[in-house]
């Protein structure tokens, strides 16, 4: 590099800049007109296996569409997703849940699927209340990837050993008192806690509220409960803690809603409250001897509802919305996809596919189908979508509960704090 004029140096600089700029704008359409989609979800190993199989099938039928898949645990998933979307590198097809549909749609991250519904995206076989869960301000921003309902999964051996009865047959139910007795009996046997402390997740509090004709959020997006109600609920759970009816604080603090970290899979509790979309995960992580029971209720209302456990949405900035919608439609409506996916995201949302899948299901998927049939009359319509700010509320709820179980704050004060924090989050 002998003599270099100033102009030459400047030219080189410009060249360098231009080349770095060129690197940052990468297209995903190759020369032969084929399209590459990015499809991401959270979940465990077994959900990943079946989802990949379904994606393989889709690619076989659509040779011009390549699908890159990524999955991770719940927390990690949302950490990555928000960063990628903010950086303009969001996925084409993504998985969301109730709390996050509102968060993301409210911030214009999700495509409005309205123009595809009834054309390339069929929804006529999907129950209206499931579809409702994917609507924000009346626009379809997401489509339920399945149907699920709340449940208690338990290992019968622990309960049989202490003679505690858990209702599983159609029409059987139990009260909160009976539930607490059964759990405390198992805990007293000294092997494991009766159930994983469920006070940390706002989802189960929501069921308890519905049993009393209340709700977490009002239809206009305000808080629907009072500090007194939350105090009563947390105190009810607190009574079960000393006798090991529920798991001790140092186990509970680790809960994040994932199957692999659950108190039950780590063999610290004999049962766990969850959504039945997680059952297949429990079967593969814990063992095939598990059974599923309804949540207790003191009222005629079970408080349980048919919910979309997770939904699929298309990125607003996706360059290949048509292809992404095609994949979405395949995942929720195609019988072959339904067979492959089984009940890994709850039972299939499309009712025809559901009937087909359930007729030949086995293992975890069969347990889900049986449970859904047994509880058919008890499952109410879906709860409304959660408003923007609900992610923070869910997190603050758990954080405050940590303080409760470690006895750092009284239940009444904690409940007041939850209300205060939640009002701040809703107001922002």
């Amino acid at each position, binding site marked *: 590099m002998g003599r270099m004029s100033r102009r030459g140096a400047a030219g080189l600089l410009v060249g360098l800049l231009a080349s770095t700029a060129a690197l940052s704008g990468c297209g995903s359409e190759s020369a032969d007109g084929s399209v590459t989609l990015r499809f991401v979800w959270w979940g465990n190993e077994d959900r990943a296996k079946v989802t990949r199989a379904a994606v393989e099938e889709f690619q076989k039928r659509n040779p011009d569409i390549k699908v890159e898949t990524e999955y991770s645990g719940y927390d990690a998933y949302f950490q990555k997703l928000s960063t990628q979307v903010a950086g303009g590198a969001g996925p084409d097809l993504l998985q969301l849940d109730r709390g996050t549909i509102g968060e993301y749609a409210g911030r214009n991250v999700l495509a409005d699927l309205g123009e595809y519904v009834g054309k390339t995206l069929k929804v006529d076989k999907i129950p209206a209340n499931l579809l409702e869960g994917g609507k924000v301000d009346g626009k379809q921003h997401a489509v339920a990837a399945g149907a699920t309902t709340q449940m208690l999964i338990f290992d019968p051996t622990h309960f049989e050993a202490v003679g505690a009865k858990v209702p599983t047959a159609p029409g059987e139910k139990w009260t909160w008192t009976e539930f607490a007795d059964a759990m405390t009996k198992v805990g007293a046997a000294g092997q494991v806690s009766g159930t994983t402390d469920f006070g940390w997740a706002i989802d189960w509090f929501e069921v308890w509220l519905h049993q009393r004709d209340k709700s977490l959020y009002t239809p206009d997006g305000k808080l629907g409960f009072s500090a007194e109600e939350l105090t009563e609920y947390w105190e009810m759970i607190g009574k079960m803690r000393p006798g090991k009816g529920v798991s001790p*604080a140092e186990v509970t*603090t680790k809960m994040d809603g994932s199957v692999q970290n659950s108190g039950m899979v780590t063999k610290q509790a004999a049962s766990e409250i969850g959504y039945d979309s997680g059952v297949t995960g429990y079967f593969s992580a814990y063992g095939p001897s598990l059974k599923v029971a309804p949540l207790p209720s003191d009222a005629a209302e079970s408080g349980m509802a048919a919910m979309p456990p997770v939904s699929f949405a298309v990125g607003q900035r996706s360059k290949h919305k048509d292809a992404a919608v095609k994949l979405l439609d395949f995942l929720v409506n195609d019988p072959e996809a339904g067979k492959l996916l089984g009940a890994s995201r709850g039972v299939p949302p499309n009712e025809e596919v559901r009937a087909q899948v359930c007729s030949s299901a086995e293992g975890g998927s069969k347990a889900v189908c049986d449970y859904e049939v047994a509880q058919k009359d008890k499952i109410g319509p879906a709860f409304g979508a959660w408003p923007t700010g609900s992610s923070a509320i869910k997190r603050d709820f758990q954080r405050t509960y940590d303080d409760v179980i470690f006895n750092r704050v009284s239940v009444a004060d904690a409940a007041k704090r939850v209300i205060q924090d939640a009002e701040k989050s809703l107001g922002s």
Partner: protein
Amino acid sequence: MTQSLVKRPEVVEPPPAPATRGRRRGQGVAYLFLSPWIIGATLLTIGPMVASLYLSFTDYDLFEAPSWIGVENYVTMFTADERFWHATWTTTKYVLISVPLKLGLALAVAMLLNRQRSGVGLYRSAFYAPSLLGASVSVALAWRAMFSTDGTVDRLLSSVGLDLGGWVDQPQYALYTLVALAAWQFGAPMVIFLAGLKQVPRELYEAAAIDGAGPARRFLSVTLPMLSPVILFNLVLETIHAFQAFTGAFVVSSGRGGPSDATLLYPLYLYQRGFTDFRMGYASAMAWVLLVVVAVLTALVFRSARRWVFYAGEDR
């Protein structure tokens, strides 16, 4: 006084170097070679810093355009955010405990390794290795497993009758898991201390010994003063590092800062505000507050250095 017979040599000024084209061209080449760094610094450091200063005065949710709200983020932070103060206090505790511990360990091990023994090179590498693993996620994961209930540490302590349970699952101990993780990575300051120790003249020790100074006296009167510039360097560096600690807390608490906010270090809370609450404006404001605080503290440490740092060649 008569004039000296010795003729002073005349001072000959070197002729001024003509401003040649060659020199200017040399500058051009220098800039050319510097350009990768200049481009990198501008695009990856200075640009983003300016952007984040702007964002700190806005309400920005990551996805939509930021809207200007003036100093509101700063006001909220100082007046209405309990978690901000909690995170500040947690980080302060972490810095106050982990930095002296880490430096103490580093110095102690450096003294050990300063002896002329066979195989000392091997030990040096062995003690330095943990720092190479640095703030990596894998180490933090191993840490979490070791310090959880029924983990290695829990069992070891139980076997000697200390039934503390898992540290990471209990609010009163969780932070010490992170302190231990930081202290364990003492390799970098250790290597610097070792270099400093090599610089201390042996004669000083010999002289002190002749004057009847025992090992403790020699350490206090010779080693520490001679090392003080190195101590200052390590202290400043490690303090800045400790304020920025994030990875360990993030991994050990799965990003939540639990149990019950015991590991909510300031950078972790900043991250939560930005990426889980979608309040990037607020997070940027927090980042600038941290920058100012660390800068002020560093300045204070440098001011205090006049009192205790001894540079060779100075009179005391």
